[in-house]
């Protein structure tokens, strides 16, 4: 598999000397104790926080992209999604109905009020909203933390399809070791501020 995202000597404060690659269509899991720096690492790769080190996408340095271009290609989905308009549909302009359906929603979801969404609905719709950008890499921060077993299965299946169909690479933060092995080909763990390979 060809390298899609390359991270070299990244230092985001709480995690140092981070080196890893993400291949096209690959899913890599990231684990670590609360506060170990998983979210900060994702934010650094998405270029949301100040950090040092090099990040390349498809062989091109991040500086070759404008910040907006970069974040549309390397898109982070936070654990808690935030919304700025009252209606769901305003945020889902680019989301095809087929994605919404795969995540358990009918087309009527576009007319729903954001304030009435449950945390699980927000999480799934947050994924659909980010996927509409057709990113090359998705940085997912505990994307199934608020979901029931059925919804977890839906999300895992939908993301696996995206990887296979579009070649989307995924860095998936999860506390669930069983899920990590289930969804990812490789796994890393942050221990003592360093990134260590957990499996295979």
């Amino acid at each position, binding site marked *: 598999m060809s390298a899609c995202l390359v991270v070299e000597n990244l230092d985001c404060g709480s995690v140092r000397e981070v080196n890893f690659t993400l291949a096209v269509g690959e899913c890599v899991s990231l684990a670590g104790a609360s506060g170990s720096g998983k979210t900060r690492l994702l934010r650094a790769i*998405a270029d949301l926080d*100040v950090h040092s080190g090099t990040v390349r996408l498809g062989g091109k340095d991040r500086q070759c992209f404008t910040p*907006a271009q970069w974040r549309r290609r390397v898109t*982070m989905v936070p654990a808690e999604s*935030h919304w*700025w308009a009252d209606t769901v549909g305003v945020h889902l302009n680019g989301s095809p109905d087929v994605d919404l359906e795969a995540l358990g929603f009918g087309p009527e979801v576009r007319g729903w009020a954001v304030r009435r969404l449950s945390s699980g609905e927000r999480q799934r719709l947050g994924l659909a909203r980010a996927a509409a950008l057709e990113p090359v890499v998705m940085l997912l921060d505990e994307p199934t933390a608020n979901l029931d077993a059925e919804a977890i299965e839906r999300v895992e299946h939908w993301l696996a399809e995206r990887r296979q169909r579009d070649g989307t690479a995924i860095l998936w933060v999860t506390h669930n070791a069983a899920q990590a092995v289930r969804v990812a080909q490789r796994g890393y763990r942050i221990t003592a501020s360093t990134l260590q390979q957990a499996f295979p």
Partner: protein
Amino acid sequence: MTLAQLSWLDLSVAAALVVLLAVLAARARLEVSRPLLISAARMVIQLALVGFVLEALFAHVALYWVSLMAMVMLILAGWEVVARQRRRLAGWWSFGISTGAMFISSFSVTVFALIALVQATPWYEPRYAIPLLGMLLGNTMNGVALSQDRLIEGAWQQRDVIEARLMLGQGWQEAMGSVSRESMRSGMIPLINGMAAAGVVSLPGMMTGQILAGSPPAEAVKYQILIFLLITVGSGFGTLLANRLVARRLFDERERLRVDRLVEMQSR
């Protein structure tokens, strides 16, 4: 018509009413009595002092004295803008941006009005220049302070939403969206309300002053219209400029939201 003379006793009666208001506010535990009394005392002292300064300035018409007075007014206005914010940009940024925006807008509008509209001789005649600049600076200061406070508070409170928009590939201006619009609105609303109510609900201060001093009302009205329009232009552009610069400073060159560039002010 001669101007009715006010005695110090008249002023004391008015001051007693302010003290009464402060006492009532204190009893209701509204926590405004202290700033109310301090501001009232400041106003009396500052106006008394400026009276002496203006008399000296009017007696010695010189560009450098007028410029010096204008710079002092500008620096104090910049200081007031910073002091009125709950959070501000760290370092000299808040002061620098506010002062710079007020300088560009108020000074350019004042100089334009003096040269092209008032046409006094010399153009910097302090009898026109200082009151005109004072009114422009005062209103621009209010607009800049209100909108900046709203902008920074909005960015702070909605930082998660702003970052969510950045994550989705929006540029910093788009991500600031409603925060920028709301802050501009809050800076401009007092002016818009003031113009809409002028002559119907309220008689503006300058016009009232001129009429009290014996000017024909028609002449006072013309001056007031000019002042309103100039204030609107100066304050509007000043607020727009300060808003834009502060919003830009909230993001770095990679368009990351930098709330770490904000510091919280001690409550006064």
